[in-house]
């Protein structure tokens, strides 16, 4: 099954990836061939099978709701691309 250019573009929007027209063509071909391989899963009857989301049978792993200090107050600053008055600075969110 071949992914259309439109489908590829829609997925790119969902994934927040800006891709070129050339990449649309390339991804369409490459992803289609992988999806074709994935189609083999339809050979199996899995109606009566429970899905496995995790190999360990753990559920609801909690700890006591007590605040702990893990990082220093300034730890986030070292890797921040830009900052302003103790906040991460980003481009404008709302267009005029």
């Amino acid at each position, binding site marked *: 099954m071949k992914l259309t250019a439109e489908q590829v573009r829609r997925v790119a929007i969902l994934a927040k990836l800006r891709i070129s027209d050339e990449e649309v063509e390339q991804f369409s071909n490459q992803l289609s061939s992988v999806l074709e391989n*994935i189609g083999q899963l339809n050979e199996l009857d899995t109606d009566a099978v429970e899905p496995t989301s995790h190999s360990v049978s753990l559920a609801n792993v909690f700890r006591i709701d007590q605040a702990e200090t893990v990082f220093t107050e300034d730890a986030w600053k070292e890797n921040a691309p830009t900052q302003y008055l103790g906040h991460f600075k980003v481009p404008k969110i709302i267009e005029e």
Partner: protein
Amino acid sequence: MLNLNIMSEFYELSLSQTMEGLASGKFTSEEITKSYLDRIESVDHHINSFVTVDIEGAMTQARDADRKRAGGDTGSLLGAPLGLKDLLATKNLRTTCSSKMLQDFVPPYDAHVVTKLKEAGAVIIGKTNMDEFAMGSSTESSYMGPTKNPWDLSKIPGGSSGGSAAAVAADLCAASLGSDTGGSIRQPASCCGVVGLKPTYGRVSRFGMVAFASSLDQIGPITKTVKDSALLMNVIAGHDPMDSTSAPELAEDYTKCLEKGVEGLSIGVPKEYFIEGADSEVTALVQNCIDTLTKEGAIIKEVSLPHTKYAVPTYYVLAPAEASSNLARYDGVRYGFRSSNDDNLESMYDNTRKEGFGPEVKRRIMLGTYALSAGYYDAYYLKAQKVRTLIRMDFLKAFEEVSALIAPTMPTTAFSVGEKSDNPLQMYLSDILTINVNLAGIPGISIPCGISSAGLPVGAQIITNFFEESMGLRVANTLESALGLTMLRPSI
């Protein structure tokens, strides 16, 4: 008993021999660390196994270790120089995941395994190269350039832990840690002729490991010998409250059962793992392992894992889907690369991810996003999760009859650089023998079992049931001794 008269260089020692030598005062950590750093300088430009070498930090840690040892400290890794895959957070030491996205990222904390290594006194000499964000089987997708196989520089070292495997094979560190999501420890270990162990899912904490596919990722040792693997497992295995998927099962002493032999053990040979199109030399060398185990007293049984062929299609839905979620955090806001094409927030996100990620990462994010999107979730993701149950049940059924399974790690030896990089699907198929172990969550260990006529290593893998790493190590150790192939080295 360690006889240093026959060992010409410190860097040729295994981790276990290194610890013996340090404990008996034959050499200091400063000497052995310097030996590795010098060798990295003279050899690594051929291989490119290290992304970051922390010369100053390593020598400081080495001198500290010597001082502590003189003061009576006896950490199990005190003074041992290790390399760590560059997706493990190391405080104040650049951690890049071999991606432009994290090229200059310096973590403010240590991963749990790094904390454990430091508590045991290890010296971290640097961070090793990998496929970008652990997505790959050849280390060719690294933003820092590919790593070459030390046995043949025209070949890949395997991936995604290619840097770790190549560094151990070329004697650039005493041992290393890698990670394995679909085979990324075992497959490069097989390509490079070293030992690689993927623990049971949940056995080793993932806190501080950059996530790729959260239900599959595991950290594990890549080492020169099976015993070294057990030594590292003793340090890194165990429950960690900071990882909510960390198994509560108590860790054990993984060296305890190494010498028990395989007399009377039933070992299964899964017929679906000997595939058409596999290299005949690989098949012959693994068959030799099976014959060797028989000579050592094991009872060999043929078993069937009927859903083996669904490994690649199942994995390539689940892993990219989980990756698309895990990599959503790379948006240029709080850390990492930020694009300068940022008129508005939306374009900043899009362009940061366009410019910061390589093509394989983008491919998998796209695949994962598609598989999870409305209208496709049931057909792909849910379906794959159900097939995952069938794959797991295959193994559980087999382990009712046998204590361990033996199979090749890879159907071939290391392929050439560039041979599969234009064909993603071909690349994915090279993991066909390792993937199901991750999907099931059980442990697997790959050991070198010979060299092909072209001079390339071949790996055999021992697969065991949940939390039975000791059994796997025991079979592997028996095989390693009986084959007499301990520490084969490329001449680099």
